């Protein structure tokens, strides 16, 4: 990326597929935006919507959820739950004024290193276009 | 000229203020009753599911939650084209009557009674329900509170709890009454009649039978010849939940009668820069400012309005009292202080009505919901204890609210209150001094309206602290005086 956007994207990666996919991107020396900050979770189903909301309220400009492709979940059916939670959560976050591109769910398998790199770059570009979210839960009141 | 410093702390409770504007000659030019509360329900209800509005809007006011709940439920009945089945209607009416007792008694004993029954020399600090209880004797006090609890019980049986009911839904109610419920209600209904009789006796002996009070009622400064608006049942008698809106002229003759749904063609609101309150007036007569008489669109709602609009009650004992009321004060009764008396009589009606309903076979029916129909628009109008209450919603095809308009009784009465205050002030104030009697009198006046501005202000209706401000015609503050702050 020529100009470096200062946005921060938290990536919640399932341990078996997406985190391994990210590893592969590394092993294959694929260059992608440094804006992504990975956190390893056992399964996309472990991700509590509160974690996503917390990420936004703590200063993330985008949140990426990634898990195994449907049917490939290491825990059989975890990613289906992740998908359903994502759809409901998304409905809520858009009501709260958080733009669509800031919250994203992707299926990234252990063999899809390049896909991980592409998703990160694409999301970084889109979020950068939206700029910093700098969420304010409370408008500060002077003491 | 005496200049009073305004203690900033007074603003803390400044939910209601009275501003009096003098002309250059030191004559009262205008008196403005000002509230500063603002919540914005009309706005944040938009986007919600329509069926949630009975839950949300009941929170407009913790003093009259049932009124808002019921108006909202009726509005959603209409919005979902789902007229409630007879059983639901009857349970609704029964609960609502219990609520009327619950609310009216609180108002009477907590506000009116201290003014009317305690010795005039009672220090203000002790002019409250707890003190009153001490005066009328702890036993009697406890009795009143216990009897009143019967009303709370009925509300709990029907709506889960007395404050913020879990009760109605579009097209009916969500829980029917079991035989146990009904017999529990029957027991309590007797206590309510007892409470009502007791209260009427207290009023009769303490006030209605006392000449000095009747004279006070009749003092010209406390009489406002205005229009009146309220619901009337098919038989032209007082009805809290159903019927059309009738407006009578100051002379008592009917000015217009219309379906609640068409309220917009008849009411309009002005808003003035110094208050969050709105000023409704009769659209077809027009806004002439705070003026009484037939040319001014100013109208009043509430117990007194109901008494002036309708031709009485359907229950015998209440009807008796009604006739006595008219005998004593004439018809229409423009005496603002008469609000209190009307209120006390309505307690009796509500209690009597419950004893009728509780024996109605349909009350325990199983059919408590009706089929939902086309989704669109709905207006729900009820007689809140303090008068006409309008909820008006529109929703999209999913039943998501796109528009909300609310007119609460104290808003309807806003102009009335201001008028009363102005007239009293004109009568009492000379120069920039605010003489002592003003407080008691003016306070008694607006307490008569029992303005519940929680829907406005957060005081037990009427017990709100008062603050006077004097302005000159240029709007410069001449002085101010606080009371109860």
């Amino acid at each position: 990326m020529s100009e470096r956007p200062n946005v921060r994207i938290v990536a919640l990666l399932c341990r078996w597929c997406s985190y391994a996919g990210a590893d592969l991107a590394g092993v294959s020396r694929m260059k992608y935006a440094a804006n992504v900050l990975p956190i390893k979770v056992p399964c996309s189903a472990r991700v509590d919507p509160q974690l996503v909301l917390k990420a936004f309220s703590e200063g993330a400009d985008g949140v990426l959820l990634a898990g195994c492709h449907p049917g490939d979940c290491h825990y059989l059916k975890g990613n289906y739950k992740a998908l359903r939670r994502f759809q409901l959560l998304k409905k809520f976050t858009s009501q709260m004024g958080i733009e669509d591109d800031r919250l994203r769910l992707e299926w990234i398998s252990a063999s899809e290193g390049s896909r991980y790199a592409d998703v990160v770059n694409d999301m970084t570009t889109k979020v950068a276009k939206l700029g910093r979210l700098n969420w304010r839960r409370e408008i500060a009141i002077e003491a | 000229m005496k200049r009073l410093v305004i203690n900033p702390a007074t603003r803390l409770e400044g939910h209601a203020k009275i501003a009096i504007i003098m002309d250059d000659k030191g004559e009262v030019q205008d008196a403005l009753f000002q509230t500063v509360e603002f919540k914005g329900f009309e706005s944040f209800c938009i986007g919600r599911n329509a069926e949630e509005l009975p839950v949300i809007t009941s929170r407009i006011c913790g003093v009259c939650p049932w009124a808002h709940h019921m108006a909202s439920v009726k509005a959603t009945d209409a919005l979902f084209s789902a007229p409630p089945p007879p059983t639901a209607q009857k349970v609704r009416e029964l609960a609502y009557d219990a609520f009327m007792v619950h609310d009216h008694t609180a108002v009477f004993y907590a506000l009116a009674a201290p003014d009317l029954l305690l010795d005039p020399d009672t220090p203000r600090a002790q002019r409250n329900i707890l003190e009153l209880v001490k005066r009328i004797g702890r036993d009697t006090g406890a009795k009143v509170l216990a009897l009143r609890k019967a009303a709370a019980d009925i509300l709990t049986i029907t709506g889960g709890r007395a404050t913020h009911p879990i009760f109605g839904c579009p097209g009916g109610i969500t829980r029917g009454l079991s035989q146990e419920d009904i017999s529990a209600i029957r027991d309590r209904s007797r206590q309510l009649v007892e409470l009502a009789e007791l209260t009427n006796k207290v009023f009769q002996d303490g006030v209605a039978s006392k000449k000095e009070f009747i004279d006070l009622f009749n003092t010209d400064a406390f009489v406002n010849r205005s229009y009146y608006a309220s619901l009337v049942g098919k038989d032209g008698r007082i009805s809290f939940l159903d019927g059309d809106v009738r407006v009578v002229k100051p002379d008592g003759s009917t000015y217009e009668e219309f379906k609640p749904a068409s309220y917009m063609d008849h009411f309009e609101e002005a808003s003035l820069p110094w208050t969050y309150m709105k000023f409704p007036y009769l659209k077809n007569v027009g806004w002439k400012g705070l003026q009484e008489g037939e040319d001014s669109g100013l109208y009043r709602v509430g117990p007194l309005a109901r008494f002036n609009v309708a031709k009485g009650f359907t229950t015998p004992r209440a009807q008796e009292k009604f006739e006595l009321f008219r005998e004593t004060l004439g018809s229409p009764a423009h005496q603002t202080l008469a609000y209190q008396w009307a209120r006390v009589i309505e307690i009796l009606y509500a209690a009597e009505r419950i004893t009728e309903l509780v024996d109605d076979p349909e009350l325990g029916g199983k059919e408590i919901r009706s089929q939902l129909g086309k989704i669109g628009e709905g207006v729900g109008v009820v007689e809140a204890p303090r008068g006409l209450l309008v909820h008006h919603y529109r929703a999209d095809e999913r039943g998501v609210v796109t528009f909300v308009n609310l007119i609460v009784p104290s808003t309807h009465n806003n102009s009335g209150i201001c008028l009363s205050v102005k007239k009293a002030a004109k009568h009492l104030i000379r120069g920039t001094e605010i003489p002592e009697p003003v407080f008691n009198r003016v306070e008694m006046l607006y307490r008569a309206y029992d303005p519940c501005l929680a829907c406005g202000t957060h005081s037990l209706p009427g017990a709100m602290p008062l603050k006077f401000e004097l302005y000159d015609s240029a709007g410069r503050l001449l002085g101010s005086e606080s009371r109860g702050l």
Partner: protein
Amino acid sequence: MKPERTKPKLAIALGATCSGCDYSLLDLGAGLLDVTDQVEIVYWPTGIDSKLEDLQAVPDRGVDLILFDGAVVNEDNLEMARLCRKKAKMLAAFGSCGAYGGIPGLINSGSPKKILLEVYQGLPTRSDKAEALNFEGEDALPKMLGQAYSLDQVVDVDVYLPGCPPPLKLVAGLLTDVLAGKAIPKGTFYASNRAVCYECKRVKENKSIDAIHRYHEIQPDPTRCLLEQGIVCLGPATRGGCDAVCCTQNQPCRGCMGALPHSEDSGAEMMSALASIMELNNENKEADYTGIFDGLNDPLGTFYTFTLPKSILGRRKVDQS
């Protein structure tokens, strides 16, 4: 009777509230008198004609317990909250508004400016649409703070008494503890640490649902769990203490008792729970679940009716403009 030890001082103050919390105290009936006998009420505008001076006159931390009823939406509320904090030995967030922002907190779903415009210009019965927009400027009127806050978002709070209104038995519980001079740990909730379901009498069988219904659309089986019948009930994510009164009335819990211990956001908890069991029997490669939540028109209003200001996001995005 001989002069007993000085009674504990009690005050009840108000912010942005419907005052249902303290008004409902009158429903203690005769019980109210027992309480008032044992405490000295220094200030309670709803119940007695008390002067604010009375409260101000009390030395700092001179009131044993102040119940603050209401959210904080304007400068008046804020100053009152701060005054109470100053005067109270123990400050209680009284009711859902004080504890979580409550219904007035729904104002956080939009921008206050917009709301002023809507209420004062947008409505049909308004004749003079142009006027009355200089409220914020008018110093006679308290300034809106731009959003609603829970009490503990503006001052330090000692105990919480949630509920809309708080169940009387919980209020009684707090008063009893205070009268008994019991040490009450900071942050104590006078409510259950378990969810409403624990108190709900409805039968729970199988938590997997295929369709969402709105409570007015179907007549649910009065004996079975509402959620299992597809009605979105916040019971599982909401503090108990209310005896599941709403469920008993065949209506879903709307969460007025707020989030459970260790949880910041009952709305998110419930969204997660609901999405987890939705279409649980349809988990396979082909299922893409598009539109399964179309029936849920209003997540914000559904999951945050009483708790928006206290939730993790707290309010709608503040427009940078």
